């Protein structure tokens, strides 16, 4: 510390004239800047809050999140039904999909008793799927199927369930090609004791599978016989063999759920999935040889000059030492 006596004889202290006081002052300023944030929400505080929460059983119950299960079914012409149970939970004000949870599926028998079908785990999209054959299922008195999807809940989410009643029906798709025109003949019928009954005025959509989702390529409505013919567009990209996966759907009906028919047709042009390596691409795994050589020549030239300068600096010092020795 430097102490100065002024004219009046009092002692003043000039703290800032010392470098370590300046350094301390700078560190102090920095800490002063950071402290309010630390004081607001330090990791330690958060940990304490979490510890307090787990210590109180009443609060723990409050933290269980409500879940919601939605059940839908897709009927296929092969006599199967795909049941899809979507599990969601209300997190931060909006419903979000819940993955990795077990959803159990049941069908009701004529006595109204639950008969287990099976259970599956929800995927990343929150959906648990199970495929069942209609002939193995119990029907209700009116000939319809009553399904239940149930999530029992766990320590994080409350349990929930959803039911679905479906009448047996199917959508059949026949693909034909004539004079380079592709046609899809679709017939929607509902099963009844008297035989198949046409489903009239039902909107049908036709999709093709693309990389990320399905693309709608045609739509129409069934006539009074439950039939519909749609033209399939030419010139779509297929897989490496030109195959296109086609799906026709009557979607989200109250009585039948989704009626789905699928077919794979060689109606597209071939698109190879093989990656063709471009020799000029910067994203190729290895840089081109000329680039490596050029890079090292340029960098080497610069750093060699730096080295020469550093050697000169050492020579300057050595020369100074010799000059001092002579003196």
């Amino acid at each position: 510390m430097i102490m100065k006596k002024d004219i009046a004889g009092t002692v003043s202290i000039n703290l800032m004239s010392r470098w370590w006081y300046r350094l301390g002052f700078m560190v102090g300023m920095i800490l002063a800047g950071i402290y309010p944030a630390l004081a607001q929400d330090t990791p330690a505080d958060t940990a304490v809050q979490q510890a307090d929460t787990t210590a109180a059983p009443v609060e723990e119950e409050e933290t269980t999140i409500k879940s919601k299960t939605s059940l839908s079914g897709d009927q296929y012409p092969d006599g199967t039904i795909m049941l899809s149970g979507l599990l969601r939970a209300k997190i931060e004000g909006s419903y979000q999909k819940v993955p990795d949870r077990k959803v159990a599926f049941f069908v009701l028998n004529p006595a109204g008793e639950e008969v287990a079908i099976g259970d599956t785990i929800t995927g990343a999209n929150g959906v648990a799927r199970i495929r069942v054959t209609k002939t193995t299922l119990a029907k209700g008195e009116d000939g319809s199927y009553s399904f239940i999807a149930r999530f029992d809940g766990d320590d994080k989410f409350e349990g929930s369930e959803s039911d679905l009643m479906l009448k047996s029906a199917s959508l059949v798709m026949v693909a034909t090609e004539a004079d380079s025109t592709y046609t899809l003949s679709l017939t929607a019928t509902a099963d009844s004791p008297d035989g198949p009954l046409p489903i009239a005025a039902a909107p049908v959509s036709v999709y093709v599978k693309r990389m990320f989702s399905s693309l709608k390529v045609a739509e129409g409505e069934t006539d009074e016989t439950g039939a519909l013919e749609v033209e399939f567009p030419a010139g779509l990209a297929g897989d490496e063999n030109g195959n296109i996966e086609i799906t026709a759907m009557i979607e989200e009906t109250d009585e039948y759920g989704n009626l789905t028919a699928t077919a794979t047709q060689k109606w597209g042009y071939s698109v190879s999935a093989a990656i063709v390596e471009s020799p000029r691409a910067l994203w190729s795994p290895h840089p081109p040889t000329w680039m490596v050589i050029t890079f090292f020549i340029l960098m080497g030239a610069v750093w060699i000059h730096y080295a020469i300068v550093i050697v000169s600096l050492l020579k300057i010092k050595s020369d100074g030492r010799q000059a001092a020795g002579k003196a």
Partner: protein
Amino acid sequence: MKISTSGSEMLRTFSPQIEHTSKGEKMWITVLVATIGLALYGLYLQIFKGHGVTGMRDNVIWGIYIVNFMFLIGLSYAGAIIAGFLILFKVEWGKPLIRLAQLMTLASVIVGPIFILLCVGRFDRLHHLFIYPRLQSPLTWDVLAVITFLVGSFLFLYLSLIQDFAVYRDSNLNVSKWKHNLWAWLALRYTGTENQKRLINTSRNLMAIVLIPVSIMVASILSWIFGMTLRPGWHSTIFGPYFVVGAIYSGIGVLIIITWYTRKMYHLERYITPKHFDYLAYMMLVMAAGYGYFTFSEYFTSWYGSETWDAQLIDKLFAPDEYGWLTFFANVAGVVIPVIFAAVPKLRKPDNLMVVAAIMVLAMWVKRYLIVVPTLETPLLPIEDIRPEYVHYTITWVEWLLTFGGVASFFLIFTLAGKFVTLIDISDLPKDENVKTQNQ
């Protein structure tokens, strides 16, 4: 060690600055440190809360951090090129400006790369850049080039300082012991022997020869980060020279401001004369013409081609309700006004040039913003049903804090350098008669 009369006079001029820290300087340093402290608070928030505290999102992945990086790194290249040419061509009038240009280089090349680090979301993976470098990536070129340039800038400045360190060491400056010892150590036992003079001159010339092309290359590499990307406004063959000219141009602007400030602050009217400002104005005029030409070419070719994606960007840049006013400011304040003030002798006065340079520097910063942000706000695929803040970039207060922190760091480095060395090379000043001639 012996120095010229003007050198001794210069040392006397700067000695109060080196020996003592005035109350005003302490306050100035306090303000700078406080600003940096606030910036560190912003950095703390950014690290612990994530990049959500910035305006950067999925589409606009770069904001003012990269703008600051481009601007500061540009300044450093400009400083090296200007100092290199002045040394290499032994420009007598330019000697008082060499140290200022070199310090500008050093301060900006230290602060600039910090901003590129602020763009990095995962600091814990930063070392991967060196462990798994992709030599075919312009980002890797830039990292290696900036490191190379940083080392070169240190060496270049140090070579110019050795003789001065020897002068400080042998002077009777009233400084603390550590400062005196450090000077002695850095002076490398320099006593002014013929061999030492030859080695220093050769090394300085060598570094000038190396750093000029290195600066041009490194500025070009920075431009290629954008130019190699297939985006409107970026994918351009003129981006390399455009960035080089833009960097030198804004560097001259900052050099005018620093020179004006140093002249006023230390009353160096005898050494830094209106002639120096005239020469700097001529350089500014030439660069403004080149820069304006490149800017016109850039916009004109994009507009004339009318390629859909390019047209979207051009519309955005010139629409008054989007970036039209900023584009207007960047071009009028960045090109037209400096050209007028540098070309008309009556307007070409040091004070006028300082004001014009300050406005031009701001316009050049805005121009870099216009290079980065509007292009990122013009994606190839249309964005629908998305929150506006995910498409449009807005600078947050955290980003402003860190930006001001960077500016404060630049000035702090300059201020602290001024406490340790003279801001003008005292051992290599022009001969006294030259000073008189320029003064007449």
